[in-house]
């Protein structure tokens, strides 16, 4: 895709459309999934199978009044939700949905993605600090320490994959995994790569993406049973709506990254005709497991979470990096 103004506008609008639609209907999927797990139907009144629920929620959120608490730092208070949503949408630019469908293929695609990802934790800090609420400040502190602790193992596992592929562009990473399921990086079967720990690095990457998006057992930022509602306690209508969409957009990006890095992007498991539908299937499978994990496990403590990262994930991922480098040297 040549980078002309028109193409850029079309690409960004498709990215926003994809992110917004995804965020809305992932909320519906999560509530239905949670309902099914807890043996209750989930939203089923508005529209068939409750499909009209997300648009109605959106309208309800927009209709509500956006209240800015007295004494809140107005500039930061308004900037926080925007900062939560903007990087999430911008990251869709470099994600290759299939060899033809890609907004703009940068040869440093991975770096751009992680630059935008780190902006997310800043928005949590802004929201927590600016809403002048003790619970929000506490949750902001937690969210920042969690984001830092889990970015390091994530980057190390990404470096291992980039080391194997040799290029930072996401399309090259997917192309390197062309062919059937045995070429994917999740399995150590490739000739140049007999590293048995690749399955574990997939697991580490998956855990880190959960922690990065404040989800499932690591949702300390928005711990509803202690900190009331965490950093977005004071946010009313669309402020909360933006945070919500930001969170789900981040989940989609986490799923896309996991598929690109480890599950062979748009490649088909049997090497037949690859295409964007394989990519979509893999993303939604991973998102289903994320939702499934959320409704099964309790929340870890802050020290449990930091111990897990500093004492277990980082040593293992470092060891894996060294092992891969050594193996690449030998073969």
């Amino acid at each position, binding site marked *: 895709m040549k980078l002309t103004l028109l193409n850029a506008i079309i690409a960004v609008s498709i990215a926003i459309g994809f992110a917004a639609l995804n965020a809305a209907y992932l909320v519906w999927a999560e509530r239905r999934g949670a309902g099914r797990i807890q043996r209750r139907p989930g939203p089923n009144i508005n529209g068939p199978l409750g499909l009209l629920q997300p648009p109605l929620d959106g309208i309800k959120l927009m209709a509500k009044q956006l209240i800015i608490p007295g004494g809140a730092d107005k500039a930061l208070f308004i900037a926080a939700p925007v900062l939560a949503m903007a990087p999430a949408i911008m990251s869709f630019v470099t994600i290759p949905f299939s060899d033809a469908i890609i907004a703009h293929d940068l040869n440093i695609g991975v770096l751009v993605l992680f630059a935008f990802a780190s902006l997310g934790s800043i928005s949590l800090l802004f929201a927590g600090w600016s809403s002048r609420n003790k619970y929000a400040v506490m949750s902001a502190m937690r969210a920042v320490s969690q984001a830092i602790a889990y970015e390091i193992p994530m980057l190390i596992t990404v470096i291992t994959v980039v080391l194997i592929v040799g290029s930072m562009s996401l399309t090259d990473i997917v192309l390197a995994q062309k062919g059937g399921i045995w070429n994917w990086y999740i399995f150590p079967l490739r000739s140049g790569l007999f590293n048995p720990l690749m399955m574990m690095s997939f697991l580490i990457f998956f855990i880190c993406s959960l922690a990065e998006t404040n989800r499932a057992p690591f949702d300390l930022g928005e711990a509803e049973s202690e900190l009331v509602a965490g950093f977005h306690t004071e946010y009313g209508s669309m402020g909360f709506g933006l945070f919500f969409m930001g969170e789900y957009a981040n989940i989609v990006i986490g799923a896309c990254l996991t598929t690109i890095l480890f599950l062979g992007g748009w490649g088909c498991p049997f090497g037949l005709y690859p295409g964007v539908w394989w990519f979509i299937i893999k993303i939604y499978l991973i998102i289903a497991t994320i939702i499934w994990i959320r*409704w099964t496990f309790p929340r870890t403590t802050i020290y449990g979470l930091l111990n897990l990262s500093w004492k277990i994930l980082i040593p293992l991922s470092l060891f894996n990096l060294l092992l891969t480098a050594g193996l690449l040297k030998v073969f």
Partner: protein
Amino acid sequence: MSEPVRIQADETFVLNVGPQHPATHGVLRVKMEMDGEYIVNAETVIGYIHRMHEKMAELKTYPQYYMNLSRMDYLGALGYCHGHVLLVEKASKIEVPERAEYIRAITVELNRIASHLFWFGAFVMDLGGFSPLMYALQDREYILDILERITGSRLTYSYYRFGGIYNDVDEQFVESTRKFIPRMRKSLKKYHRLVTGNIIFRKRLEGNALLSRETCRKYGASSAVARGSGINYDVRKNEPYSVYPEFDFDIPVYSEGDSMARYKVRMEEMEQSLRIIEQGLDKLPDGPIMPKKPPKIIKPPVGDYYQAVETARGNFGIRLISDGTKNPYRLKLRSPTYSNMHLFDESCRGLLIMDALAFMGSLDLVIPEIDR
């Protein structure tokens, strides 16, 4: 407990884990002086739902008051009515037929399981896991249906009368309870695999808020709070009343004193209650459910009587000072959660707020029972 951690914090802020807070399960306020996320010291403020049950007792006659008891702790209401009824029968020497005592024991144990199930769901939800609450409430629904069929209401049963019970149980009650027991055992196994074995859950609870035997003794804690710290105290065993001597069941005691021990004690108490119900159903004698000529007017002789009963939340003591008239001169309700909650202030110093709220969940609080 190890010497309370003295955090010399230069500047702390006061956080109101206030009357409206998801973790307090009721209107209880804990003024916590915090240094960052560590609690420097805490002061519990209660009384938001205080209804002066003891004054109501003095203004009403005995038959007009017994339904108030089930409003004290609506999760395990039958235990409290049982205590009140036993006390008045002991004071005015009313004979209770064998069948009524057995039905009372069975329904109290069913109510105890229902209360423990609700605690289990709310406790795991406090720690972040939401689904076990739905499974626990679903199992609890079976018990409420069984009890609703015979008593007529789901939470605040006015089922016991002085001398017996309101109306008899039929064959379908026995049969549905028998069907309930294996299903409950199966779901208890499921809870153990889903929650007790879970490493996240274990990591959160082991070593959280250690309670020593001395602290429990100084505050008069009872039920799982005391039994989690190695105190083998259960009123059904220590001061046997009603038909409990006929049942053989044992009291789960763990000596670690942390929230995990309290959790395990309550989970095993459910299994013990199932055993009691089974034996109760086997030995259920037939016969009358009220004495031949039930006393028309209840007038216990002058004196001071005390009766302790083991409810789902602990040792519920009830003291009656009667002056021979239709109204009690003084009725003191010793509520177990009052003492269990009282030790929270001292034992939560130095904890993180997350651990303190997990500790509060393991105390199994029902706030209207603290405030009376």
